[in-house]
């Protein structure tokens, strides 16, 4: 159903330019990995604290406030570079199972992070059962997104 759309993307000016360039994919992919590091750090600083680990001397809400703008920046960087990577090989990705796993878990992870997790971290001080569940879920969701993303290249 979506195949014509993916085929059309490959014919657009940006799609063909990215597909033909030798350097662009490698460079964008490298920046995507720098973004992964920043995203991992800004999530973990808070997720560890939600589990009762890491910076336990600080209230959860305070750490979440410190990490938030870096988290938003990392997500924007990842979405921008990720979109460019997608535009450079849409048809290959259409037939890639890992891509579909990633593209369906990513919105879930984003929604969870900026609704449930955000609301909880804004008001929380100490780790409770609820924060531990949210911290573990956040780690698990983003792990699946990242693992499926890496596996695109192997499948």
């Amino acid at each position, binding site marked *: 159903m979506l195949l014509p759309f993916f085929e059309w993307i490959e014919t657009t000016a940006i799609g063909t330019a990215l597909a033909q360039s030798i350097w662009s994919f490698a460079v964008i992919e490298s920046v995507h990995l*720098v973004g*992964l*590091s920043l995203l*991992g750090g800004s999530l973990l600083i808070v997720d560890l604290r939600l589990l009762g680990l890491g910076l336990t001397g*600080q209230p959860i809400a305070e750490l979440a406030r*410190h990490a938030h703008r870096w988290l938003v920046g990392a997500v924007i960087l990842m979405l921008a570079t990720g979109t460019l990577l997608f535009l450079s090989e849409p048809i290959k990705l259409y037939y890639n199972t890992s891509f579909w796993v990633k593209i369906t878990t990513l919105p879930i992870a984003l929604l969870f992070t900026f609704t449930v997790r955000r609301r909880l971290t804004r008001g929380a001080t100490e780790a409770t059962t609820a924060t531990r569940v949210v911290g573990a879920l956040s780690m698990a969701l983003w792990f699946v997104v990242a693992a499926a993303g*890496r596996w695109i290249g192997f499948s």
Partner: protein
Amino acid sequence: MHDFLVWLGETPWSIALLESYWVWPLVESTHVLTLGVFVGTAIFNDFRLLGWSLKSVPVSQVTSRILPWTRASFAVMAVTGLLIFYSDPVRYYHNMFFRIKVVLLVIAGLNAFFFHRRIHRSVAEWDHMDPLPGAARRAGAISLAAWAFIVISGRLVAYNWFDCSIQPQPAWVNWISDCVLALP
């Protein structure tokens, strides 16, 4: 060195690892995903030193509560990284981006060593200072830049653009990669 790595690459385990259907991708995926933990936590240590984040948290708390995660995940990075190298030693040894990565790793390592040996010793005196002493901020900036370029050069190792087997290359590329070229 070259001859030793040729021998190493011909050991049965090296060949098995390179040709394995599941193990090599799993090792490589572990290396990439652990990046989010290792560089991710290192970045926030650097951000703290630079005053870019966690400003209300004393430096000593970041180094005592976050750096253990950085160290543990570095162990995973080192083991998986060495396994990847072991799977194809000659190719990586003569890969320009791998060589750049190793030089940057040495710089990052020395920077961390001097930070802990010299600068961090007196952390009690500047734990809450704003901005932090120049030496601490400098160590944070060097670390941040080094790891960013280590990630980038590490990713580019996968490309054979400058490999010795692809000639002609500029003389400086062959010099950096230490290519053994057949005489014309």
